[in-house]
């Protein structure tokens, strides 16, 4: 269990984190989402021991990031947003480098490198300089360097930025595999569909505050707001007002009502009787992205 206890951090007059208090279950995959400058990276830097001046504490499996910093660092694998690899060296050299930084050596290190290269799908390219690698390959190696020492907690800060769908799929498979092997994952991303797909719990952070958190099901249920979506050329709002509150968009009409499923049945019956064939008629479920906008607003956040 990771217990975040009253974490606050100031940069001059700016409060980057404001009394964060929550917990992350062991062997879970926790998604941390928020707009730019919300405080995600500051939180991650505190957790992995890069920032050591802050208020509050984090207990990682009963060890304090303040008092037992080295022990906590040994059980965490950090995948930063930037690709932190030595460009002039080979994949094997990079893994050796990070393995040694975590205290691995000899046969154990060589075995771990072999296993990790297979996990990240780079066994064939082990002895190639990474300056020749694609963005996706570098991202996978970036993860490889963080899991070499078999950490029980893996912190991933936007690990899929700027890569192709195949590499993204490969990274998701790797995260699932790590979760099955018993690791606790903390995953930060701007891609809401990714978080919804791979995380089982989620926390929304905005302006340094945790504005919502819970299991994915709890959060989605709490903010559930199913609607009916219908699209047809020439259709006007007045034809639909009998079914609920209608909102017209460029693509079609959203109808908010108390019981969308039954209402949709009534609509289908009505359309059939009147020979109306809509181009699209579907139930529109609330997605994580909708909740994100609900909680953080639509205003642009450009302050890094």
């Amino acid at each position, binding site marked *: 269990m990771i217990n975040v206890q009253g974490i606050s951090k100031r940069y001059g007059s700016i409060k980057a984190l404001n009394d964060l208090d929550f917990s992350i279950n062991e062997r879970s995959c926790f998604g941390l989402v928020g707009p730019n400058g919300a405080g995600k*990276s500051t939180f*991650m*830097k505190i957790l*992995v*021991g*890069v*920032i050591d001046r802050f208020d509050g504490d984090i207990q990682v499996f009963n060890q304090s990031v303040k008092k037992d910093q*080295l022990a906590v*660092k*040994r059980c*965490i694998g*950090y995948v*930063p*947003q*930037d690709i*932190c690899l*030595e460009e*002039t*060296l080979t994949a094997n*050299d990079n893994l*050796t*480098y*990070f393995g*040694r*930084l*975590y*205290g691995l050596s000899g046969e154990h290190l060589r075995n771990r490198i072999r296993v990790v290269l297979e996990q990240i799908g780079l066994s064939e390219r082990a002895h190639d300089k990474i300056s020749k690698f694609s963005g996706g390959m570098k991202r996978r190696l970036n993860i490889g360097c963080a899991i070499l020492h078999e950490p029980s907690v893996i912190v991933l*800060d936007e690990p899929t930025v700027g890569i192709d769908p195949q590499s993204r799929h490969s990274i998701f498979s790797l995260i699932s595999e790590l979760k099955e092997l018993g690791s606790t994952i903390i995953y930060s991303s701007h891609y809401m569909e990714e978080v919804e797909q791979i995380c089982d719990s989620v926390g929304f952070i905005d302006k340094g505050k945790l504005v919502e958190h819970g299991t994915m099901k709890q959060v989605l249920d709490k903010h559930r707001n199913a609607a009916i979506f219908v699209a047809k050329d020439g259709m006007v709002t007045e034809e639909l007002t009998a079914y609920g509150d209608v909102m017209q968009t460029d693509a079609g009409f959203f109808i908010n009502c108390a019981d969308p499923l039954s209402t949709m049945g009534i609509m289908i019956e009505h359309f059939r009787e009147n020979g109306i064939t809509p181009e699209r008629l579907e139930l529109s479920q609330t997605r994580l992205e909708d909740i994100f906008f609900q909680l953080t607003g639509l205003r642009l956040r450009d302050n890094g």
Partner: protein
Amino acid sequence: MWAITLTELKKNAQDKGLWFWTFILPIVFIVGFIAIFSGGEEMDTQALVTQIVPGYTVMFSFFIMISIVIAFVKERDGGMVARIASTPLPINRYFIGKWIPFMLIVIIQIIVLFSFGVLVYDLPLGDPLSLIVLSFVLAFLSTSWGMAMAVLVKTENMGIALTQIIALGGAMLGGLWMPLDMMPAFIQATAKFLPQFWALDGYKNILLEGGTIMDIWLSILILLSFGLIGAIIAFVSYPRFLRQSKS
């Protein structure tokens, strides 16, 4: 710590710019300036060689600061500093691990340039122990200033500009380019406040007068003191540097 040292050595061995600043350019300067000055009658050949070879060796040893600044700024801006800070490696070991390769490079540079002087210009070497001790102290000084500058500067360009001022300004005022007695009195007085002067003074004492450790103790003490100032600034400023690092 050794993982950092070995990786840094591997990276530096592949850095063509470092080869140029460290070995090629100094040799070109030594050859060029000995050719220019050997035409005059002011200095005999041995005096010329014992001025130019150690003088330019001292001057170019300070150019290691450029490589140190580039290495640190790149790692700070690329997120590597924060990444390494997330590992269990203590900060001081990271720092020393990065430092050792640059010190080794300066020592190799001194060996190469002095060997070139011996082979091509018959440079006298003097007491080997004194030479080794003075060279280690010089390497400590130039790299500790490089480490201090690396953690203080905001950009690579700022570091490169300051290195030029320290290396070229110190060389000019410290008497590395020509014997101090050929320069105005105020420069001769200023030179005594510069480590470059004391490094060259130590080398000349060993090469020309057969000086031993006891004869160059003041040079060693002054260079060590300057080096310690750089090292203390570097260690004290490192936490701030870490806070500036991208993650």
